[in-house]
């Protein structure tokens, strides 16, 4: 019963993150939405692993790996955004710029 709640929460988080990734113009907010999607998938995966009675260690190890890799991807993305802002002066993508 309990893993089902967390799995459905993970599914909702994935949806919220997808909406943020597609709809928000500011690039930093897209990184946040991307992280929401990632943690939602991890929650879904972890809930699937918690279904059996005993503690299932393999999903947990894979999720820890995933969290660390998500951080390194976010760090690279954030550095790219700062470099983009330094060279063009905007934090949105050029074809989505609604101010010009």
């Amino acid at each position, binding site marked *: 019963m309990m893993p089902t709640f967390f799995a459905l*929460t993970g599914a909702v988080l994935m949806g919220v993150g997808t909406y943020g990734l597609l709809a928000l113009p500011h690039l930093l907010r897209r990184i946040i939405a991307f992280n*929401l999607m990632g943690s939602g998938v991890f929650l879904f995966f972890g809930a699937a692993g918690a279904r059996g009675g005993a503690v299932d260690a393999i999903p947990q190890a*894979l999720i820890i790996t995933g969290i660390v890799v998500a951080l390194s991807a976010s760090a690279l993305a954030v550095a790219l955004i700062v470099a983009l802002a330094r060279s063009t002066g905007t934090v949105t993508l050029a074809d989505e710029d609604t*101010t010009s």
Partner: protein
Amino acid sequence: MTLALDLALCALIVCVSLATVAGGGIFRAIIFFITYGLFLAIGWARLGAFDVALAEAAIGAGLTGVLLLAAHGRLRRMRTKAVVQRTGLNLPAALAATAMTGALGWAWFALPAPSVPDLSQSIAQTGVGNPVTAVLLNFRAWDTLLESIVLLAALLGVWMLAREEDWNTPLGPRYHALSGGVLVGFGRLLPPVGLIFGAYLVWAGAESVGGAFQGGTVLAAVGLVALMANVLPAPSISQAGLRIALVLGPGVFLCTGLLAAALGSDFLSIAPEVAKAMILTIEIALSISIAVTLALLVLGPPVDTQGAP
């Protein structure tokens, strides 16, 4: 009783995530994201995954939050063009989001029955008591080795964004901690405690909850606080000690794997007699590398702070 607790926790997680993508400015979104990470860590503890809870709180909420806040500060100082917030719902995105949630929800109920593999026999042979550490550093050591190299690759990608003339500039923004002030006091008081905590987390990861990643993250955070308080001098990329610390973890890991291959058994296989000692060596080297790599990832590429920030 615990059902109500879990339901309330899940509802909280969903509400905070909705607040994260709602309007109101990016600083608000970052703070809500950090809070979301902490609630998620509690959720992991409820699911019985305590190592994951530690990792989510430290890395997912803590370090990612610091990363985003530092970037937000840098962008504000650059005075970029203001972003016009579109009002109203973006319908195609909302449809895609609903489809995604629906698909995952349907997939959950279509999952086959769970079959947990019985690892208890094999874990006794790995030399460690914590099953997650056994999986990370023994059964799936290949994944962890590649993960440490991925961290290094991300750091190299971040460094490549620096200009040629900025290469030797000290990393991180110029901090203005008042000497004798509160931050300097904090920066002197926290590192000893944090160092013990980080080392304890790495050591305890062998038998109970903890691990190299969680301990390494605590050490990285302690280093960042010391940097902010001007207690540690800002590092620069060309320092040899820094580069050695970065490569130490993956290097030791790779060498033990090659050593096992050279001695006749398979690459990265660990004989049960020397398992505990070998895993501990790998963990210590790995946590040093993880600490330095994560701290440098948050600090970003070297930039010229005289002109552009």
